[in-house]
């Protein structure tokens, strides 16, 4: 199937700004799904609120556009009631880690098979450029007019500590890596977290004088490096890209199936 077979073409052009990274995530995600050859009927996409969440409207899967921060909770209900479905949960950084932070760490902890994609543009875009928990110290935002004093999360470290069994980071510049990582994350038997550094030229780029979309991509290229690279040793401020964790641990739905088995045995 061509990637256009996976979208709802009637809603295009989409509502994101020119040069928005979220469109690139959509692009990469569709290609990952295409390489897996999945049927559209076996995919459920659950999203929250914010620019990122609109992604679910554009894909021709079973789509659940929910409330701010709660996408993983809804997705957990879908997955537990139909474990054979593939759950993809794209979220924004504020969505996943501020209002949805608790749901995020608990989904990691359960190791329930679904793919959480954090489209990290370090800003609240839909409400007009307020700082998020990923904005980072010293950055500018409409609610940090004198520079941000909040420190950012490291999504990768957080997900690893919380127990996710597949954790990766990439950027919208590195589209081929993005597609490969998303493909592996989707087929991973457990909770997978993919942080994709995504550009918001409209707010983050402009407010922080990084420039337009191509300049922001250039910035991703220059400020990131493959995990364990020599460049990282020389310049510790570089952000590492790649797969940080990929391990097999008991998955939640399979574990629950064992609970059912034990309960039924105890009965007879």
């Amino acid at each position: 199937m061509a990637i256009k077979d996976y979208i709802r073409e009637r809603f295009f052009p989409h509502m994101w700004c020119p040069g928005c990274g979220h469109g690139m995530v959509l692009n990469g995600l569709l290609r990952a799904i295409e390489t897996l050859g999945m049927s559209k009927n076996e995919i459920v996409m659950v999203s929250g609120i914010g620019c990122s969440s609109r992604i679910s409207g554009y894909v021709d899967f079973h789509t659940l556009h929910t409330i701010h921060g709660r996408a993983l909770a809804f997705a957990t209900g879908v997955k537990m009631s139909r474990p054979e479905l593939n759950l993809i949960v794209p979220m924004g950084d504020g969505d996943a880690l501020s209002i949805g932070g608790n749901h995020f760490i608990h989904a990691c902890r359960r190791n329930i098979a679904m793919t959480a994609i954090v489209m990290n543009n370090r800003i609240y875009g839909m409400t007009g450029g307020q700082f998020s928990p990923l904005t980072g110290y010293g950055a500018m935002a409409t609610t940090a007019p004198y520079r941000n004093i909040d420190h950012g999360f490291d999504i990768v470290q957080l997900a690893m500590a919380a127990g996710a069994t597949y954790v990766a980071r990439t950027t919208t510049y590195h589209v081929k890596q993005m597609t490969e990582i998303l493909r592996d994350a989707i087929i991973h038997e457990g909770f997978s977290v993919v942080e994709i550094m995504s550009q918001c030229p409209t707010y983050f780029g402009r407010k922080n004088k990084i420039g337009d979309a191509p300049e922001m991509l250039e910035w991703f290229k220059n400020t990131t490096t493959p995990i364990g690279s020599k460049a990282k040793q020389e310049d510790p401020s570089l952000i590492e890209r790649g797969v940080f964790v990929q391990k097999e641990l008991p998955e939640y739905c399979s574990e629950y199936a064992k609970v059912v088995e034990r309960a039924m045995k105890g009965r007879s």
Partner: protein
Amino acid sequence: MSDNVKFLQGNEACVEAALYSGMDFFAGYPITPSTEIAEQMAIRLPRIGGTYLQMEDEIASLCAIIGASLTGHKVMTATSGPGFSLMQEALGYAVMAEIPCVIVNVQRGGPSTGNPTHVSQGDVNQARWGTHGDHAIVALTASNHEDLFRVTVEGFNIAETYRTPVILLFDEVVGHMREKLVIPNPGEIPLVERLKTSVKEGIDYHPYLPREDGRLPMSDFGAVHRYNVTGLFHDMWGFPTDNPKIVHGLLRHLVDKIDNNAHKIAMYKDFYVDDADRLLISYGSAARSALHVVENRRSRGERLGLLELQTLWPFPAQIVRERARGMQSVTVVEMNKGQVLEAVKSAVDKPDRVFLANRTDGVLITPTDIRNFLRVIKGKGI
């Protein structure tokens, strides 16, 4: 003694009723005084291949059952005041997206953490207006286990019929009290099952286009029809819109489907109302005390009657108006500052004849309390 005769808590009776209704997916978070529901679900559901899910909080619990409802399951969560407060956002989502689900609130004292182990009926208006925006809601209650069982089953039936969240507004006394329950045989109480679409694969399915009878046939997530579900105002395909005509139409549909069927949703019980000259209106555990008083006064020749409400929302205004007509006085017996009292006053012809007998200190209102209130009311010349 056969297995369907049980001596159990109201919370356990609620579990029995939910299982009788075909509920097989429960997500929850422990909170007094509803915890026994979660505990029983954790024991019972795996035995029938159902799912018990303990989430990280009440918000996630309601979100999870909404997700599970979309795949075709009958679903439930249970909580108490503080947890119910947390659920209000997702409750609105279930209203907007028309997701059948049942939410139990075993009421305790509030506001805030309040009085965890003690009874209250303070959440009546929260059930009505806790979530933001215009909407209709269904809230049911009961005063004994037999009724609680029936009301719970009806709660699932209403949720499925109207594709709406249904709130079961029980209270600590009924939830924790133990009495006998004879579980009805299968089929004794009719069950409403999920109405599934008959639209075949490849043909345009409109998830939000009501049939002529107002019902919305559903297609399960994972089945052949792929559609969108959102908390935004949406068109008949489920996609967001701000078209004023569609927004208006959807809001009207959400309100009308409940309010226009208020007479069908209304559950209540009359006790000695026909020849009464004074009326008590009560619900939940307070109705037990009210009925005690009514029986006691009847034995002394007084013509006191009781209207026990089981449907609180949509408020059965017509029933209340009819029953109150011609009464010297109407006394609402409840354990809050007069939440149903206000609804009764706006329903009846003579609101100045409506009085409140209440208690709000965490103690079940006693028959003596009610008699004392009635004396005071009588002192007012009525």
